[in-house]
């Protein structure tokens, strides 16, 4: 039987407001533990939440970018559970009346657009940070104590829930990368996985290809990079398929993916079924986003990355277009003159590899350099690219260093190389023509990369046929 993966995502994006969602403590990193706390976010008796208007607006803007409807009336609910990182004993979140719902997000793909349903995008507060200390590995299981820092507690998050519309790890990765770039370009979040300002859980199930049933799903928590997520999904798909093929049943559970062990052990089983006892937050009044506000936010949306990918794909192919846009390099790409595909390749491969900040590059100079790529030694080109972000960079300085294409200069080197590799030369002559590249590489090395590779291979071919 052939199996179809069914994948849905729950993404948490930390909003880039200056203050927390329900108090006016500064949010963000860098302060000493518990230095960004107040009676409200520490849940001192009698304190009350007051929503951050900007956080509401950012959520609406993000919802609009995801094609959602903005609710005429939205309500905050309390989600009740006990944990030391939750100061009030409940999280203020949204439940059956979220701010945004019913969206659709298109991800350009090789087989047409991938349409991902957005079930909802709602606003909620983040929990604080627990540090589990002591014990063998300092892991949750063996800790001797837990230390709590409430600085993050109460930071605004948008939770985005997709439909079960993704059907491979690669689709999930492409969706997430595009979503991330969208969020960043809207200016509502830094969405950096390393800092935890973008986090996601993955719901995974499989079904026989062609069927439309939804089977028991498992939840992969704590994904800390797109690559690990893809790996984790692949592994979980294999596990579920093996279970079904062995005649078993998948059990609904939450798995904690540990990239170092490349395994996903189940989280500690809950002592009782979770019952969050949602109730409408009586300390807050409903949100009723005025039409003018929603329309103003809609009008302020920039051109979204998905549209730019579609536009670029026609010139440079989907993969490069996707890479350029989701890395934010397409802004530079648009301004660098020259062959589109060549420019895209250089930007995505060499320039990225050299670690140059694309925003510091002079596009005209970079264009000149790329245009001369075939005419200057490879090492010189590399050197030039690496310094292309420096102030005052000019391509001119490097263009003078023409490649060695003079046969009289190259022949002695070629002779030396052939003499040193007689066996390979014999093999070539016996028909192993693939060895040409080997000789070209040797000559380039001998010349410190300054030889013109095209001339070298021509001369080599002549010499070897002789």
């Amino acid at each position, binding site marked *: 039987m052939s199996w179809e993966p069914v994948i849905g995502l729950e993404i948490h994006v930390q909003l880039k407001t200056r203050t927390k969602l329900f108090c006016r403590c500064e949010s963000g990193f860098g302060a000493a533990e518990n*230095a960004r*706390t*107040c009676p409200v976010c520490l849940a001192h008796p009698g304190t009350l939440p007051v929503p951050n*208007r900007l956080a509401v607006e950012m959520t609406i803007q993000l919802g609009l970018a995801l094609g959602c409807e903005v609710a005429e009336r939205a309500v905050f609910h309390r989600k009740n559970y006990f944990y030391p990182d939750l100061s009030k004993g409940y999280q203020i979140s949204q439940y059956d009346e979220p701010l945004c719902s019913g969206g659709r997000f298109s991800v350009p793909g090789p087989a047409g657009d991938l349409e991902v349903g957005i079930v909802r995008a709602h606003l909620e507060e983040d929990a604080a940070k627990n540090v589990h200390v002591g014990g063998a590995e300092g892991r949750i299981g063996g800790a001797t104590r837990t*230390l709590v820092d409430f600085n993050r507690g109460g930071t605004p998050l948008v939770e985005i829930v997709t439909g079960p519309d993704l059907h491979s790890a690669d689709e999930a990765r492409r969706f997430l990368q595009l979503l991330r770039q969208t969020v960043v370009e809207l200016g509502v979040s830094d969405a950096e996985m390393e800092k935890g300002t973008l986090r996601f859980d993955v719901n995974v199930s499989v079904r026989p290809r062609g069927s439309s049933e939804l089977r028991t799903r498992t939840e992969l928590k704590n994904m800390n990079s797109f690559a690990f997520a893809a790996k984790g999904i692949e592994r979980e798909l294999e596990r579920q398929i093996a279970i079904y093929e062995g005649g078993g049943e998948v059990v609904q559970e939450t798995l904690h993916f540990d990239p170092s062990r490349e395994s996903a052990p189940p989280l500690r089983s809950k002592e009782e079924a979770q019952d969050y006892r949602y109730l409408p937050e009586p300390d807050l009044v*409903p949100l009723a986003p005025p039409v003018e506000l929603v329309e103003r936010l809609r009008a302020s949306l920039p051109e979204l990355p998905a549209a730019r990918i579609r536009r670029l794909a026609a010139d440079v192919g989907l993969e490069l277009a996707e890479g350029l846009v989701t890395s934010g390099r397409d802004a530079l790409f648009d301004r660098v003159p020259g062959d589109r595909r060549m420019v895209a390749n250089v930007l995505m491969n060499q320039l990225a590899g050299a670690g140059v900040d694309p925003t510091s590059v002079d596009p005209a100079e970079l264009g000149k350099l790329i245009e001369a790529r075939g005419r200057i030694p490879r090492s010189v080109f590399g050197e030039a690219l690496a310094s292309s972000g420096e102030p005052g960079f000019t391509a001119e300085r490097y263009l003078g260093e023409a490649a060695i294409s003079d046969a009289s200069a190259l022949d002695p080197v070629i002779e030396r190389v052939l003499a040193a590799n007689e066996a390979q030369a014999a093999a070539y002559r016996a028909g192993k023509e693939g060895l040409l590249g080997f000789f070209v590489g040797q000559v380039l090395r001998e010349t410190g990369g300054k030889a013109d590779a095209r001339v070298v291979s021509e001369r080599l071919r002549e010499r070897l046929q002789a």
Partner: protein
Amino acid sequence: MAISRGEVLHVARLARLELSDAEVERFREQLSAILEAVGKVAELDLSGVEPTAHPLELSNVWAEDEPQPSLDAGEALASAPDREGHFFRVPPA
């Protein structure tokens, strides 16, 4: 509407309350009597009636995104039953 021993224990667990056996029985009796009385609301057919979450009909009450001073760490931790450095300390979670 009687409530069972098991339900009392379940609710106490959800609410993080430890009860002795005697307490479980006493609360079971009292809660059963109270639930019997409050269960009266079920008599009314209220389909089509909107719930009242709040006596005042307000909406869009919010504050601008402008930082106000936080507590200093001494104040934040002043009431903590236990601490370690600038952290609140609790038994392992």
